């Protein structure tokens, strides 16, 4: 970064900085904003936790699917039509009465886009990233999720290629629910592991 006296000292507003680099790259033919708007719209309209909820509901409803999902997450998730960037290598980790799984990315913001969409702000912020690996039980309790002392908390740091989906335990009293109804009770937070259903 150059800081000699020929350069301005006052930082330009964020909007002006976005416009500056965007205009350069459009003029150089690097960016085609119309094409890119369609890609962004796909994130806005088609990617999100509703996709992951379908995966979880299927696993709860179909034991053979659950087995395939735990054995090869990428392939089983693709069966439901979900694949793409940040979903190339999916690993599904299952909660049990004795193990609670929690997902974090301490180095940046890795997150399974095809099934959960883009990550929420708090997932990308220093508080969650620093504490999830250091004091997960305390952190979860602060976030309203009390995990009993005899339940192991297993934290998965998405530090390289694997992207994780937590398969929550199916709540009691849901035996009569259809797969579609089940998908309706699965939350983003349960699939990250910061919530129990």
């Amino acid at each position: 970064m150059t800081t000699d006296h020929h350069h301005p000292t006052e930082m330009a507003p964020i909007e002006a900085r976005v416009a500056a680099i965007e205009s350069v790259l459009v003029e150089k033919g690097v960016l085609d904003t119309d094409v890119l708007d369609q890609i962004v719209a796909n994130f806005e309209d088609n990617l999100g936790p509703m996709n992951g909820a379908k995966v979880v509901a299927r696993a709860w409803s179909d034991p053979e699917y659950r087995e395939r999902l735990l054995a090869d997450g990428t392939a089983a998730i693709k069966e439901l039509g979900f694949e793409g960037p940040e979903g190339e290598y999916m690993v599904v980790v299952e909660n049990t009465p004795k193990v609670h799984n929690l997902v974090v990315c301490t180095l940046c913001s890795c997150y399974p886009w095809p099934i959960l969409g883009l990550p929420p702000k708090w997932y990308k912020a220093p508080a969650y990233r620093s504490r999830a690996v250091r004091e997960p039980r305390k952190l979860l309790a602060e976030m309203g999720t009390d995990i009993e002392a005899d339940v192991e908390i297993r934290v998965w740091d998405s530090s390289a290629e694997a992207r994780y989906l937590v398969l929550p335990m199916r709540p009691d009293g849901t035996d009569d629910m259809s797969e579609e109804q089940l998908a309706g009770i699965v939350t983003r937070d349960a699939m990250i592991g910061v919530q129990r259903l």
Partner: protein
Amino acid sequence: MDGVHDLGGLDGFGPVEHTPSEPLFDEDWERRAFRLMIGWIATQHPSGGRFRHSIERMAPEHYLSSPYYEHWLTGAATMAVEAGFATQDELDRRAGGRFPLSAPDRGVLPADLTPRTTPRYAVGDEVRVREWHPPGHTRAPRYVQGRRGTVVRVDGAFDIDDIAAHGGGSVADPLYAVRFTSRELWDEAGADGEVVCVNLFERYLEDPR
């Protein structure tokens, strides 16, 4: 690099400001910064490591004080300047003020660029993470360097980010999930009944001593 992006285990950031749901983009500039980086990646094909390292090289105080998509903006602009599409002066002029970019890339390639696809370790093996604090990009978080863990998953071979990030191309390396106990990582400050599994390349690992 031992940067502030490598946040695992640091103290002092306070409670998580959790929201049950939120819009994808709060403000229009966030959407435009996202679009910018997506477009840069789609046309210039930086490796994942190069993309992430363009952000990791931000000044620490800038990284910690700026919203998430400002990281993407700064990284994209830094890569654009480094690729010769713009200069610092031009960006400052167009923005009407200072446009902070990330610091220069200090990464060095290892002497050995041999790809490896046959895993040396198996599930259940004890390993130790090398402690080498590289000046460039790595996916070995600082909090596991020097620590002992157990292989719990063998992932096959993937291109290692550390090499691709610094122009060394695609070099395959076996990848593992390695489980560390909280006590191994944090000693007295750790807790029983908590474990952390980290996705680590074989080049990061050595036999335990």
